Every structure is written in structure tokens, then in C-alpha cells.
């Protein structure tokens, strides 16, 4: 390789032509690639592919057009808390979101805010279960009303409110 680097531009071009290549002008910007080409031709392609790949002082970077990596997912701790809080009343969803958001910056306050925002909830899940069932019944009642009204033959069977 040193020998090749010591060649003049003309000699380099001549040597390349000797191997059947048709080099363009040997300039400052093209010299390096032509030296490599000559090395490749001398040593044979197979050997060179193993030993000598185009060297660059730069590290490869992903295409700028490629999307940047997705934002780092939230810490698993948040997820665990959210999972645990599925059992709790739906009213507390807002609190969960708030504490989840603040969890990104600091864990401690969010935990305390969690405890602060649940004054009414007990440690056991028993009480919460009753409320959940109650709300479910209300929803089912409304679904029943909708279903009743959807049937064409039944007419309007929604209980009438007096004073209409």
C-alpha cells in the first residue's frame, strides 16, 4: 500500500490501465479511491474483500430520513402502578394519569400524590368492588333500555316520567 501511495498520478493511472481499468483523472479527490482500486486489482477481489474495506474515519449514521427512534417507553414502574390501579374506582383514572405523568420526572412525589389523592379508598379492594358492580349495573340498565327501543315491534317501553 505504501508503494502505491508513492506512485505519481501518472504511474498510478498507467498501472490501473495495465489491469484493464479505465481510470478518470487522478486528482486529490479521486486519488484515494483509485489507490484502493489498484490494490484490489493486484491482490484479487476475494482477498481484498476480507482484508480491506473502504476505510472511513466517520462512524456510520442512520439515514437522516429514517425516523428517529421512538421515544423511550415509560418506565415499567408506571405500568405496574397503572395495572395495580385497574382494580380501583374509575374516578381515580385522572389521578393515575397525573401521577403517571409526574413519574417521568420524579418517582417520590408521584407516589405521595397517589396516596394523597385516595383519601376515601381503603387498602383492601373489597370496598371498591361493590362500587364497580354498582356502576356496571347502571350501565347494563342503560344498555337494556337501548336494546328495548331498538326492537321494531315493541314500541317505546321506556318508563315515562310524569309531568311531561
Amino acid at each position: 500500500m505504501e508503494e502505491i501511495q508513492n506512485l505519481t498520478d501518472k504511474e498510478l493511472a498507467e498501472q490501473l490501465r495495465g489491469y484493464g481499468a479505465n481510470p478518470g483523472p487522478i486528482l486529490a479527490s479521486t486519488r484515494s479511491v483509485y489507490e484502493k482500486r489498484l490494490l484490489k486489482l493486484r491482490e484479487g477481489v476475494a482477498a481484498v474483500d476480507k482484508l480491506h474495506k473502504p476505510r472511513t474515519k466517520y462512524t456510520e449514521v442512520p439515514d437522516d430520513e429514517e425516523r428517529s427512534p421512538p421515544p423511550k417507553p415509560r418506565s415499567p414502574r408506571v405500568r405496574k402502578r397503572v395495572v395495580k390501579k385497574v382494580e380501583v374506582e374509575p374516578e381515580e383514572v385522572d389521578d393515575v394519569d397525573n401521577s403517571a405523568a409526574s413519574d417521568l420526572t420524579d418517582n417520590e412525589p408521584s407516589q405521595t400524590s397517589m396516596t394523597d389523592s385516595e383519601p376515601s379508598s381503603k387498602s383492601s379492594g373489597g370496598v371498591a368492588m361493590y362500587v364497580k358492580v354498582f356502576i356496571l349495573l347502571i350501565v347494563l340498565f342503560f344498555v337494556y333500555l337501548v336494546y328495548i327501543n331498538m326492537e321494531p315491534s315493541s314500541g317505546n317501553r321506556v318508563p315515562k316520567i310524569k309531568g311531561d
Partner: protein
Amino acid sequence: MGEKSVTELAGIGEVLGGRLKDHGFDMAYVVLGQFLVLKKDEEMFKDWLKETCGANAKQQGDCHQCLKEWCDNFL
């Protein structure tokens, strides 16, 4: 091609464009010039691109294809 910056070439984004500019290849037509001086040889041009700005295989291919098509149409 006109006065388009080197970052307008396919495969050349901000980072690679910056590196090319450091080497003096600040306009698209200068890189075109290099492509022509290398006699539009694909392998030579890709090698040069890799060496000059560290382009990966995809970026090399995109840039080469871009210039090749331009030459096929306008040169």
C-alpha cells in the same frame, strides 16, 4: 440541479451533508462533478462516498442512483 445544496441529494441528510461540506462538497453539482470525474463508475463513487462522509450502503446506493438518473436524463 441548479444551486441546490448537497443535502438535497438522495441519501444525503444533514449529518452526511455537513461532512461533505467540510470536504468542500457543499453544492449538489460539486458531488455531481466528482461522480463524473470518477467516470460515473458506481463502485468508485460509492467507495468515495463512504470514505468521504461515512455513508452506509443504502445511502451510497440512493445517492448514486439519484446522480445516475440525473445524468441519464440531462447529460
